[in-house]
């Protein structure tokens, strides 16, 4: 039998498939509404606890975990931090983060190539939000799908490593259009990858109507890390004041 064309259906039923204008039902329904609703719920929860949450995305091997290790080493003096790690398999990244002395929740997605709001919701339940100031979400290494899913974060950051080439933004426009800041990682390798042109990378990023800050840095040598960390601190302070103005003025 042919399942898709309906040729084996009894004739009575076939007749009822005739197109009828009366059968049209105009609706406007966001296809992502189930994810978006959970994302809003997550954001509300984070706001209630005064937590600033950042979603970090890049290709596999773009340097997300390394950037987190280096950032946490500096920021843990200021903030109480946790990391939500998304990977298809293994706890490796979470263990690297735990070695920094902060809590890490590993989400293994199995075959899913991105995190969605439901994953993050489950992870938030495993954390004691009263004891946190900052949450990093390290998304699954992928420049395509993660762009389509709101997780409840306050800012999206992408990494572009110099080994990937300066045309990456134009190759993955949906991702690079959406982000609130771009880290150009592994600049210690610029000497060896001389076909990566920083100016061209920046120009390609701006062609996507994105005026967000760009931080060329090396998490390995620490070069350029300061500007990125300053931005994080500023954003977190701004968010905190927005959520709880009295608290900030009395501090």
């Amino acid at each position: 039998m042919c399942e898709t064309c309906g040729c084996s259906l009894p004739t009575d039923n076939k007749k009822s498939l005739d197109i009828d204008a009366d059968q049209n039902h105009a609706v406007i329904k966001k296809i992502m509404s189930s994810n978006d609703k959970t994302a809003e719920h997550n954001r509300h929860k984070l706001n209630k606890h005064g937590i600033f949450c950042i979603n970090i995305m890049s290709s596999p091997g773009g340097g997300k975990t390394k950037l987190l290790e280096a950032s946490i080493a500096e920021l843990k003096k200021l903030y109480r931090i946790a990391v939500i790690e998304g990977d298809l398999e293994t706890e490796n990244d979470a263990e690297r983060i735990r070695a920094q002395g902060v809590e890490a929740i590993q989400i293994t997605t199995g075959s899913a190539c991105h995190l969605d709001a439901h994953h993050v919701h489950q992870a938030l339940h495993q954390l004691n939000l009263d004891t946190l100031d900052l949450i990093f979400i390290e998304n699954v290494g992928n420049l395509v799908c993660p762009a389509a899913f709101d997780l409840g974060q306050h800012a999206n950051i992408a990494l572009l490593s110099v080994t990937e080439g300066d045309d990456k933004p134009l190759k993955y426009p949906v991702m690079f259009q959406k982000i609130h800041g771009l880290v150009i990682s592994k600049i210690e390798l610029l000497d060896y990858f001389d076909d990566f042109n920083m100016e061209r990378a920046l120009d390609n990023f701006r062609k996507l109507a994105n005026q967000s800050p760009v931080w060329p840095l090396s998490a390995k040598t620490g070069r350029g890390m300061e500007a990125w960390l300053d931005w994080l601190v500023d954003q977190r302070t701004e968010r905190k004041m927005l959520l709880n103005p009295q608290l900030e003025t009395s501090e």
Partner: protein
Amino acid sequence: MARREYVSRHGNLPIDQNLVVTSLTLRLGLFSGVDKGLLKRAFQVALHDFHCYWPSTPETQQAECDGVYFSPTTQLIIEQVSASIYCRECGSHYPVSQQSFQRHYLSCPNNHRHITQLISGDEMLLINMQMHPESASTCISEAFKNNNTQEGNSHV
């Protein structure tokens, strides 16, 4: 959702009637990140599996479908809409089609150094559902219930 839409338009839907969906229309923006061809193929797979496995496997036997079924010939119509940008320096809006994106990306068509912002283009909406009620006893779902215990799975 389908039931709610039906009732809001036609008043009521008797308890012994199922709803059969025959067509869905989606509106996708250029920047939705969804590929039309892939989505159409995925929809065929989902439709196939719905008819092949839904009513007959033990796991799905108990599952709620709220009396809403998809016709085996359900059409997926995809309306693609272009994006639009605003150029702060020109002070005007420009549409961005697939072709113009390949030329200028999201920069101003007059000068790529101008500062622009994306105004629309990430829509992912369901805008029309074609459906009709059928008596639960003669419903299309009954028609395939007995026929589809086969394990044929053409897409795997």
